């Protein structure tokens, strides 16, 4: 393989917004262009964090860029997201974040107090998550060449002992755990933009999920097969990726999936599916059937884990897809999200 020319399958003429939205278009870009040229030797499916070995020590490493409008929203801000997002990517790869380096891209003319507020938010989030900020870089671009500020964080983490997760290890009968109510972040951002003129008492769920991850690793370490934080594209997109990577079917019970009233109301009003809405403080775990109850128990006892539930299980069929079943015996496939969720009127 190493001697043959990399096979580039990405043939789209230009980059569109959807390529960054975390759905199928993003996947085509990563798998069709980045993977063959940059990590041709990589084994297995691409995940949010890489595990690499240096002098016999295995560490986890991840990077993420944060572009959000508005910069501040109920329950959080870009600074908190930038820390929690990276801590969470490491956590769901089975690692405790140890250090983060930060890159700021700032638009000339950005008021200092806005920047200062975000830097403070980052400091507080890092302290809360117990991670050190080890360095950084700043670039300033001309006014109009960026939307106020972008933050990139790169984190390294130490692997928790006794966890080995991979989609290939997922087996029929395994249970799907979800740490709490879904859609809070995505709906908060959608409403905070103000374009829809809709108000609701709702806050982003941004937080470090590491304490929750640690609690289930302690309770059911060997039984944990896979974890993911369902950010862009929501639970449906994360589970579709899993279904494709493991070749199994994911079957969810709709009535088990916790959704707050305000998220539900906004979704009904705007024609959206909560399963497609972004989260910033939740995670999904696939746990072997024999350890699932212990894992759930541990999650529920951990601070912030009271709403955790088992929402479904892995089955042989429908292979490669996510099926949602209802109490009254109806079922539907739920696909990945194509691009950003857009309000519908029809």
């Amino acid at each position, binding site marked *: 393989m190493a001697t043959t020319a990399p096979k580039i*399958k990405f043939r789209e003429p230009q980059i*569109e*917004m*959807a390529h960054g939205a975390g759905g*199928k*278009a993003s*996947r*085509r870009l990563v*798998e*069709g262009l980045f993977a063959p040229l940059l990590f041709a030797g990589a084994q297995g499916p691409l995940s949010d964090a890489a595990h690499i070995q240096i002098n016999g020590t295995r560490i986890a490493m991840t990077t993420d860029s944060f572009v959000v409008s508005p910069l501040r929203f109920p329950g959080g801000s870009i600074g908190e997201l930038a820390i929690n997002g990276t801590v969470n990517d490491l956590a769901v790869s089975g690692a405790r974040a140890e250090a983060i380096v930060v890159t700021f891209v700032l638009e000339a003319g950005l008021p200092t107090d806005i920047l200062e507020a975000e830097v403070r938010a980052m400091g507080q989030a890092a302290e809360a998550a117990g991670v050190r900020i080890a360095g950084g870089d700043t670039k300033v671009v001309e006014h109009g060449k960026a939307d106020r500020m972008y933050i990139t964080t790169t984190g390294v983490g130490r692997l928790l002992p006794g966890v080995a997760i991979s989609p290939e290890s997922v087996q029929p009968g395994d249970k799907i755990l979800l740490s709490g109510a879904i859609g809070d972040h995505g709906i908060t951002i959608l409403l905070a933009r103000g*374009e*829809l*003129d*809709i108000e609701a008492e709702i806050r982003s769920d941004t937080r470090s999920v590491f304490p929750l991850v640690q609690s289930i690793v302690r309770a059911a370490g060997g039984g944990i097969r896979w974890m993911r934080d369902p950010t862009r594209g929501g639970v449906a997109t994360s589970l579709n990726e899993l279904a*494709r990577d493991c070749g199994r079917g994911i079957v969810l019970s709709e009535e088990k999936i916790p959704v707050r009233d305000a998220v*539900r*109301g906004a979704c*009904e009003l*705007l*024609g959206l599916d909560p399963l497609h809405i972004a989260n910033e403080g939740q995670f999904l775990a696939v746990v072997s059937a024999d350890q699932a109850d212990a894992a759930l128990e541990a999650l529920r006892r951990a601070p912030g884990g009271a709403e955790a539930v088992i929402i479904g299980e892995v089955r042989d069929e*429908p*292979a*490669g*897809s996510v*099926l*949602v*079943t*209802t*109490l*009254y*015996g*109806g*079922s*539907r*496939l*739920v*696909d990945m999200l*194509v*691009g950003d969720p*857009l*309000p*519908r*009127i*029809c």
Partner: protein
Amino acid sequence: MKYVDEFRAPELISKAGEEIRRLADPKHHYRIMEVCGGHTHAIYRFGLKDLLPENVELIHGPGCPVCVLPMGRIDDGLSLTANPEFIFAAFGDMMRVPGTHGSPLEYKARGMDVRIVYSPADALKLARLNPQKHVVFFAIGFETTAPSTALTIIRARAEGLPNFSVFCNHVTIIPAIRAILDSPDMRLDGFVGPGHVSTVIGCRPYEWIAKDQGKPVVVSGFEPLDILQSIVMLLRQLRGGQAIVENQYKRVVPWEGNPAALRAMAEVFELRPYFEWRGLGFISQSALKIRSAYGEWDSEQRFTVPGVRVTDPKAAQCGEVLKGVLKPSQCKLFGRECTPEQPVGALMVSSEGSCAAHYNYSQHRPITIDAAASL
């Protein structure tokens, strides 16, 4: 949620399903068309097909305004964004619908001023907030949506707001149903009538379907129990050899419709002599245009648009699917060349189009083919 949750009650849904199985004559294959794309969406969303016996088949009708809009109309509307003084405002549904040179969302990514609005009233508000710009509201929808556009135009005139206009693509449902019933290869037993359109037009406009064509019509709500109850009502009519218009959605739909909404529509709109429907071709008197008295708020009367006509690729069998002759998955392009992300045909462009709904929610799509195509 009041008026929502009680109509999703599992035990009643099971009962309704049983009643349908009891009423359906096993020797007969029922073909029932749900006219409205909202019903199509709900049927897939709630997995209602799983509750129906094999011999009760639902055929998805033409009631998806996004799907039936010809690509040329999108091109015409988007041509106005070339002027940097213009703001193009449309519902989220339109944002991913491809024109010849891309979708509104792609125009936005290239720097054109494209905004998503939830309401025509929000587009009007944009015009008030941006007096130095001109806001074009790209209006789509059947009779449910047209009155809101009409009232917005009436408000714009009352305010004397000069920097707002509507690019009108409103269509009417009855001529589309007629076109489908006139199609020689059509065989339908009855119709689930469009509940939300009927809040405006009422139930009388369907009477000819029952009287002249002998097909029962039940105007239906959108929750699982509404749709199942409507099917029960249709099967009872069919069993009794009856063909009348019934109103299942009485909590929302008055038999006579909404007179204030009808007045607003009549004040602002008149019928176009003909209009092109994607998948169905030209249908006479099937769409609305803005009366000349309101010409100042009509983008087409005020500005020049190129008048683009784009024909769909021959291979796309949208017309057959739209008329219920083919199932979505029987189209040669379904799930291969034509997917929701890269739609070729009309019915794949909106999540309530029958092909997109089938693709997104149905178990029978060719998953492996799609996975291979996307890598």
